């Protein structure tokens, strides 16, 4: 069930690419259950504009009944993303998952999360604290610093 659906999703993505993604493909031709995506930062006024991050997506056998797991391989500062492990805390990838979502639409949800953080349930406490204290310039600068230092270039993304 999962394999057929994933092949369909892949075909659908190449026919109609998702503007939130620079890339979406299985990491190797032999394993359909691990994908990589390159996510684009949302447009300004989001502080993430211009950033490119690689995400590793692990897909369970029971997909699409169970959600895929996403991890940022590229370092990123965000209240709901773990700085070290790249783990993402997003309801759509946990309790709110529905088989009607696709890998591509879930990536769109992650992009939306970048602009709309949830500092009350943080994975990155420092980033969340900056936001809660209203230190927006510091928050934005930190994000920008990480994009410059760790973010992918357009060339690397393809």
């Amino acid at each position, binding site marked *: 069930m999962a394999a*057929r*659906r994933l*092949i*369909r999703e892949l075909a659908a993505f190449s026919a109609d690419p998702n503007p939130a993604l620079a890339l979406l493909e299985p990491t190797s031709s032999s394993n359909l259950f691990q994908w990589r995506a390159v996510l684009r930062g949302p447009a300004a006024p989001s502080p993430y504009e211009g950033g490119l991050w690689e995400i590793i997506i692990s897909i369970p056998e029971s997909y*699409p*009944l*169970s959600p895929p797991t996403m991890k940022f391989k590229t370092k990123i500062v965000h209240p709901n993303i773990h700085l070290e492990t790249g783990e993402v805390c997003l309801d759509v990838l946990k309790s709110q998952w529905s*088989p*009607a979502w696709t890998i591509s639409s879930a990536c769109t949800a992650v992009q939306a999360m970048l602009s709309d953080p949830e500092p009350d349930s943080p994975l990155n406490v420092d980033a969340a604290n900056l936001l809660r204290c209203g230190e927006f310039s510091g928050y934005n600068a930190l994000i920008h610093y990480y994009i410059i230092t760790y973010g992918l270039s357009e060339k690397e993304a393809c």
Partner: protein
Amino acid sequence: MSDFDYNDNEAPYSDFEFSDQSFDDTEDNNDEIGYSSTDDGSAFDDDDIYGPRADTRKIYETDHKALTKTDLFDICQSLIDDAHSILSLPKDTIATLLQTFNWRRDNLIERYMEDPDKVLSTSGVIDKPTTFQFETAESGYMCYICCEDTPNMELLRLGCNHRACRSCFKYYTEQKINEEGTSKDLRCPNENCTFVIPDSAIKVLVTIDVYNKYKDLSLKSFVRSRNSIKWCPYPDCDSAVECLVRDYELKTTVPSVTCANGHSFCFGCSLEDHQPCLCALVKLWLQKSQDDSETANWIKANTKECSKCHAPIEKNGGCNHMKCKTCRHEFCWICMGDWIKHGQAYYNCSRYDDKDSKESREAISDSRHSLERYLHYFNRYANHEQSARLDKKTYIMVVKKSKVLQESIGMSWIQAQFLSQSFKILHQARKTLKWSYAFAYYLEKSHVTTIFEDNQSDLEFAVEQLSELFEMDASEIADRKVQLLDKCSYVGKRRIKLIEEAAKGLSAEEWKYVVDF
């Protein structure tokens, strides 16, 4: 122990040393507890179920009703039927609504009468006669979940009009039930749809094992929603007990109950039956004995207390001239008297009877007394707990003996049953004694406690005698059967007396405690 299945799962019995049931597989002690589970299993009327027996029950007993899984299903079903007859919605829909309303039938009916649409939409149901149907896919249809597009495949259409192929629904529901262990929230898989997949659809979709699991889960959520029903805490026991004891009543009563499989436990705290000790005291006691007993023993054995500031002091070498680190008081380790008065009599204290050192010893603080007091009760408690554990061995012996009696002496099986019956009484008495020590520890001394402790020591004496009788060999037992039975009935009566007196004191609030709880 061959064919006597004494204890089939030894390891999980950590909290409960014994399954009372396994002592005796003939008759259970329904007659003793006074509420038989079978006489009106289907009735579920909160008001008069507990009424008629109240006058016949003993003061230390609590009215309760053992419920089997079937009884619980019946209760749920009757709630569904009731609501069905009033609201005239399909039973499937009612079942979902009741789950959402935590099985509060009256609450559901009331809310539904106020605003039916709101109740339906928030509970994820739709008022339609058919909540699901199977259909054949038209050409060109592709299941949105698995992307299967085989012509004419079987689809399931839910009441919310969303559909997907049958196998996807099967996997989806099985996944939810098996992996997430949920009976609630089995919603339509479509994004943002809140429609709850009805029971009858699940029944036809999943395998019988998964469906049974689903029913078990919903039964669990039902029991969780009722304060008056609790599962039996014994491992692998799937029966429950209904008891209307309220939280505030736990200060004046110990609600011992027995489940349909004959396991006795306390309804208040789901621990083993701990008559006559109150739940709150049991909790305090267990906490105390876990935290303190070893430390307390060590302090008692290895330290003395400074006669001035009462700090515990360990003598780890050197002479008898002690100087307290805390208050700088100098004293003699032997007689505990003031060192100054020892003059030159170093290393050789002969002043034990001296007035001054006597006073010093008498000044030993309350804390040491209270420690000794605690250890007095704890040692007795621990002793009976230990004996109860050893009873397990004795029981196996008893079983063997009863076989010998049957084979060699030609006693019939029924006749030989007196051994296991008597043993059950012994075990019960030990359990009561054990908890009576925990109880007595927290009692303020008065003439009532003196009577209580007299009853206690009387029972204890009889229990030890009975225990000794079990150690005779088989032929002797046959000869002294009458003596054994006499002792048994005496122990049984003394036990009842003890818990009866304690319960009287509890309900009259005569006991004064040394702690607040």
